[in-house]
């Protein structure tokens, strides 16, 4: 699992590469827990290379959902693979989080 950051203006893009499981979710959690992340307007998560997400991986997003909402930071997922999207959908997260097909739509929101 690799997490790459791209920051521009008010938008932070995190590119996830690999499998987000119990061990790699710790890495992502430290990124999302940084206080300066709440200064951005939008945090975009590029899921193109995200092959698998475990419940621990989902837990990371869930645990930061409230603080993002409270700070008015939009969390947007894009380029999500079918099977990863299915996991979000089964858990009902698609109704809570913004998931869009492409990067263009993600920035447009």
């Amino acid at each position, binding site marked *: 699992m690799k997490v790459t950051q791209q920051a521009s203006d008010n938008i932070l893009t995190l590119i996830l590469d690999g499998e987000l499981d119990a061990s790699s979710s710790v890495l992502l959690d430290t990124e999302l827990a940084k206080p300066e992340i709440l200064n951005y307007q939008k945090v975009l998560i590029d899921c193109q290379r995200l092959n698998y997400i475990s419940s621990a991986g989902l837990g990371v997003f*869930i645990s930061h959902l409230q603080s993002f909402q409270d700070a008015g930071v939009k969390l947007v997922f894009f380029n999500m693979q079918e099977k990863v999207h299915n996991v979000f959908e089964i858990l009902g997260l698609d109704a809570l989080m913004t998931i869009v097909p492409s990067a263009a739509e993600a920035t447009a929101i």
Partner: protein
Amino acid sequence: MTIRQKLETAFLPLMLLSWMVLLVSTLLHASPAAASRFGIPPNWITLTAQAVFVAAVFGYQRAQPNLLRGTDFVGLLRRLVLGPGLLATVCVGLHLLERVVQFKHAATDRTFFAIVYTVNLGLFVIFLAFTNYAWRSLVLFRASERLQREWLWFEVLLGVTLLFRLISWQFPLYFTLPVLGALAFFGVYLSGNQKWVAYLNRRQKLEAVLLQGAILMSMTIFVAYFLRIEQDPRLVAPASQHAFLVLTVFFATFYAVMGLLVTLFNLPTAGVFEQKREEILSLQRLTQLIQRGQTEEEVYAMLFDSAVQTVEADAAWLDILEEDTLTTYQRHNIAEADSVAIRRLLADYNLGQIEYLNNDLNNSSGFRALGLEFEALIVMPLRSTKRNYGTLYLLKRQRQGFDRENMSILQTFTSQTVLSIENLQLMARSIQNERVQEELKIASSVQDSLIPKNLPTDNWFEISSHALAAKEVGGDFYDFLHLPGRRLAILIGDVSGKGVTAAFHMAQMKGIFHALMQENPLARSEREKFPVPSKFMSMANTALVHCLEKSSFITASLYIIDYEHGGFVFARAGHCHTLYYHSIKEEVSYFRTAGLGLGIIRNESYERHIKNQFYDYNPGDVMVIYTDGIVEARAADQSEYGEERLKQMLERTYYLSADEIKTQILDDLAEFSRGQPIHDDQTLLVIKFRASQPEPGI
């Protein structure tokens, strides 16, 4: 029996026979009366008898088993003194007796004198043979093959000298002297082999010196006797086997003298050997303690005692570092103030944590200022590659009291100690681990008791279940509850994460299920007596808010089956979709309903994210409920089992009984993920509805 063995058995009779011949011939020489009757035997008979006797005695002794038993050198010497030494006493006794007899009867009869002479000659030869072969076993102790060959040559050459007197031709002196001298030199050379002395301890060496002195004395007695007898005008027998006897006497004496001197000069160093022995024994004791697995305290005490004893320190103390606190563990002849002062001084010099030897403390102004009575100091840290266990300090009053040897032996002690301490700690850790394993086993059996063993049975449906945890305890759960009015509640769920935390929440969820599914006595209508699934989920969500950590969530599905009316209602809180076989439509599909997992939204708004779904079932319908451990099971190529393959399995097996459907699905799953470890808990429930039948007895 080989020729050699035959020869060996012949030695004893030959010895006796030749001695008798010798005696008779001497008597004939001594007594003119007898001689006139039997005639004087020629000299060659006497000489041959002598030679045969000597050869037989030596041969007999040679054939005896080795006199040395193990490394009992002192025992060998003792036997030498007690046995042949006694012969010397007998010899002196006989001689004195003979003197007394001569004194009383000053006759000219030399018979008795001749008998004593012959007996003494026999005793002397036996003494020599015994001594020589005792020396042989000492010379050949751990000897090289070369030395063994040399010894054999020595024996052969000595044997040859026996023949000297048998040949009537007298060798010229310039020939015999160098030959004898060379042989004597050979004996001197062999006498250099005194390896055995090194194996004696101090006490044994002292004893060996005394015993060797006694042997030399016995030898002197014999030699003195014979030297004296030679001058005696009464001796009429031809001169004895000179060359051989002189050589063996010379060798036996020389070896004894050499041995005596070597032992004597080894006495002062015996203490050093003993000390080395003591060091080795201390090391062994330390090593044995390790294997017995004693406490750390005992190991440290053992190190301290051994170190102080071995280097003969006048004062010492041992500091042990435990979790960054230094405690003085053991103290010997030193005041606390002094030890603190020395430690501080060493720290000032930056010498606290390294091996350090100072044999002249008063040369350093710092130590002189402390005004200590000690002149030498060793600092020896107890250290492994990973950590520092403490430091050992040893002091001596004597200048130059310690040496490099002491340092290396202490290094061995400390590294042994560190090894044993680490062993003990490892052992303690593995015991702790075992205890945790044991507790996990208990947790596992407790959790097992939370999973229903007796499935509900009724003639309206059949249920089959399967549960398998990836670790000792898991986060999957399912439960049943009979509700009044021929209704059955089924709960299935999965706590995010695995292991002990998940197991706790799973138990919590079971409690919530049983608490919420109680009949509400205040309910206004029949419908409100039990919460509908969506209501149950939102109540459970509220209950979980306070005890579920932020990143954890629970997925669950609750089904309430009303088999009176042939329908069911369910709500899905983020759990896997329900797989269903519709017997009327002859079709397998998933109920794809919306619904959010528990613990994701932690306020009242959760209610908006959960829905109820109603369905009227028909006889022959099959419902498959499972957790994600089933559909996310992986094959060797990392692909997932998936919803599609599960659906295909039901399409192939819907007509079977619930049990058989479950077995077929599990078999297919095992086939799919063969050789792969189970990475998540797996739960599978199969419910098959049957044609409604009236309740028996109604």
